[in-house]
């Protein structure tokens, strides 16, 4: 039975919580069981923020993830904190624009993606998290880009509908970066 | 017909209510028509009203609050019946007050009516209570109680005790102290009250008439 355990970590304000929520929503739309759980309180305001998402064909039990299949690292402190949480053979996606170090372990698959630099080139630094999502769905083939966009359209509503194209571009850029750099 | 008013005052915890209940029973056996009015609104425990039912069975009128409560009720309502009884002028009335000068404050409601009648105001003294253990303290308490009530104390009651642990010496030591108070203030010691076991052993020349107390407010275990 498929189970995917994900940890997203970074600064508050990087859209870390949203990354996890998008994956949880997408899982629910695919009739999978899922659980999203944030670190909450003052941590979410400017400090480090992280959340965990479990996606499974089976019922989700423990909300606590000790061994993650995938870990998103959006900044340098998060790498120190969460590298050990990747299960052997699991993957770690690192924002190499902000986390300059390389992973120390050799039993995990590391992907270094300069999401802030790419976002800057796209003209909107705030979509760095969506570039990460693009990279993730390219690597895992878990969800289609269109499924993610559908959720964004719903949550943005009319008011923010104009932001859909840039998010679309960002996901695409993330996918492309993986295609080109990790064949 | 003895239709005096007896007002029982004293320091908080000096034994006013025990004396009042016993005094009411005693007067009742002397074929007087007795009414006991519990004016204690200071503390809702150990009040003479707790013996209300047994007193009523003896034919003694008991007035507590307007709710006729028996047990510790935090409702300090003074019954208008008390004023009525004082004005009625037919019964021997015992007014059992709350402790200290605060307890005598309530008498101010009735002082004019009381003065129109023959009254005694007895101050119960237990010299083993810390705030009435010296001559000066007792006289100070007397003055304060008179000031608050607008009435004069007419007699002392030596009720000095350590409950069941009281000895004859304890009562005698208190006697000499209260005699001193009596001399200075020219107010007589009218009773010495104690449990029967002690009372029998007291010498005959002790000041005040011997008055036997049967504990009725405290449970056996107290």
């Amino acid at each position: 039975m498929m189970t995917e355990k994900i940890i997203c970590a970074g600064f508050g304000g990087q859209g870390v919580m949203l990354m996890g929520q998008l994956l949880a929503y997408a899982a629910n739309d695919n009739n999978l069981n899922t659980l999203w759980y944030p670190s909450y309180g003052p941590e979410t305001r400017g400090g480090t923020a992280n959340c965990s998402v479990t996606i499974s064909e089976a019922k989700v039990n423990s909300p606590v993830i000790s061994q993650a299949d995938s870990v998103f690292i959006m900044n340098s402190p998060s790498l120190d904190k969460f590298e050990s949480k990747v299960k052997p053979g699991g993957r770690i996606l690192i924002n190499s624009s902000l986390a300059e170090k390389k992973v120390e372990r050799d039993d995990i698959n590391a992907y270094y993606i300069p999401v802030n630099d790419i976002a800057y080139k796209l003209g909107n630094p705030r979509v760095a998290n969506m570039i990460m999502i693009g990279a993730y769905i390219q690597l895992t083939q878990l969800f289609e880009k269109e499924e993610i966009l559908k959720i964004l359209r719903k949550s943005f509503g009319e008011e923010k509908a104009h932001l859909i194209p840039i998010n679309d571009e960002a996901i695409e850029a993330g996918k492309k970066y993986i295609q080109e750099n990790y064949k | 017909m003895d239709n005096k008013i007896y007002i029982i005052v004293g320091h908080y915890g000096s034994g006013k209510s025990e004396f009042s209940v016993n005094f009411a029973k005693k007067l009742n056996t002397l074929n007087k028509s007795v009414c006991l009015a519990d004016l204690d609104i200071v503390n809702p425990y150990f009040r003479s009203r707790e013996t209300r039912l047994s007193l009523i069975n003896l034919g003694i009128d008991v007035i507590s609050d307007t709710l006729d409560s028996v047990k510790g009720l935090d409702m300090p309502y003074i019954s208008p019946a008390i004023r009525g009884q004082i004005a009625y002028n037919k019964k021997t009335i015992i007014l059992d007050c709350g402790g200290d000068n605060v307890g005598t404050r309530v008498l101010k409601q009735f002082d004019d009516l009381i003065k129109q009648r023959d009254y005694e105001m007895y101050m119960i003294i237990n010299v083993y209570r810390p705030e009435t253990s010296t001559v000066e303290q007792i006289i100070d308490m007397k003055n304060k109680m008179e000031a608050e009530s607008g009435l004069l104390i007419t007699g002392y009651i030596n009720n000095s005790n350590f409950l069941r642990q009281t000895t004859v010496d304890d009562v005698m030591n208190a006697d000499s102290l209260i005699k001193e108070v009596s001399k200075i203030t020219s107010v007589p010691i009218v009773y010495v009250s104690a449990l029967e076991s002690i009372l029998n052993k007291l010498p005959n020349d002790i000041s005040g008439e011997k008055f036997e107390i049967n504990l009725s407010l405290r449970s056996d275990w107290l």
Partner: protein
Amino acid sequence: MAKVMMKGNEAMALAAIKGGCKAFFGYPITPQSELPEYLAKHMHKHGGVFLQAESEIAAINMVYGASGAGARVMTSSSSPGIALKQEGITYMAGAQLPAVIINVMRGGPGLGGIQPSQADYKQVTRGGGNGDYYVIAFAPEDLQETVNIIKEAFDVADQYRNPVMIAVDGLIGQMMEPVDLDIEVPKRELAEKTWATIGTYGKRPPVNINSLFLDPQGLENHSWNLAKKYNTIKEKEQRYEMVNMKDAELVIVAYGTMSRIVRSALEELNKEGIKVGLLRPITIWPFPEKAFKEIPESVKGILTCELSTGQMIDDVKIANNGKLPVGFFGRTGGMVPEPEEIIKAVKDMLGGLK
């Protein structure tokens, strides 16, 4: 309606609306603030009242007033806020007023911390305020169960004319899970609220909502009547789940988030051939003592797992009544254990029993 992804606090708020809640009075406190926030946004659309009170004390007394006036009413808070509400809760129990109270528990004592905890167990299950009384307390483990129980809780409160508390830890308040809000829950037969103060309108004599008894005998009678009601609740409302009991060597007793972590641990233990069962209280008051009679002969010991230094363990010991050795595993202060820690505790205890 299909399943929707909702945050625990929001799902609880919506469940209350679906359960017929017509009034909410509360005061912000982490980690439950999304609950009043959601109701502030939506309550009026359902003809209900939302009001942010000046304090938890005021909030629970508003609940008292609204409940006394016959409304289905709720409040929510977290541990230190629940401590403040205890005054109103005991008055409600005394005056026999129904209400639903949500407690999204955080670490203590004192200001403690905002991370998940079950250290309110005693505050929740021992009445909490002054006097001889209890609140009916549910401790669900996931959002679907939480939502279903909240919808049912209003009926339970009305049936027994007693406050009902939903005790979840901060994790359940903060997490998101798919949840179906339209699952039918059992309906209770409810009497008309003839006791409610809604004005006489010339149709009946005045009624009075009150917990004061001037006469000690009256208060004793009232207390015994309440005790009788609580005995009925103990008899009829114990709720629990038994998992993996067949041939189990050890039984873990755990509720709420802790029971989910235990479930993950049990899967791993099962792979290793170690048979461990889970006794999961769904009501923590009344405590499911009946479940202990169903523990099979194969069981050699009981391990109590809590997000506290050990509170429910007292009830476990009472229910066990000296039959089996009772061990304990706990994390507290907002620390949530990983399943591996439970696995180790199980192995340690089994090792000691052999």
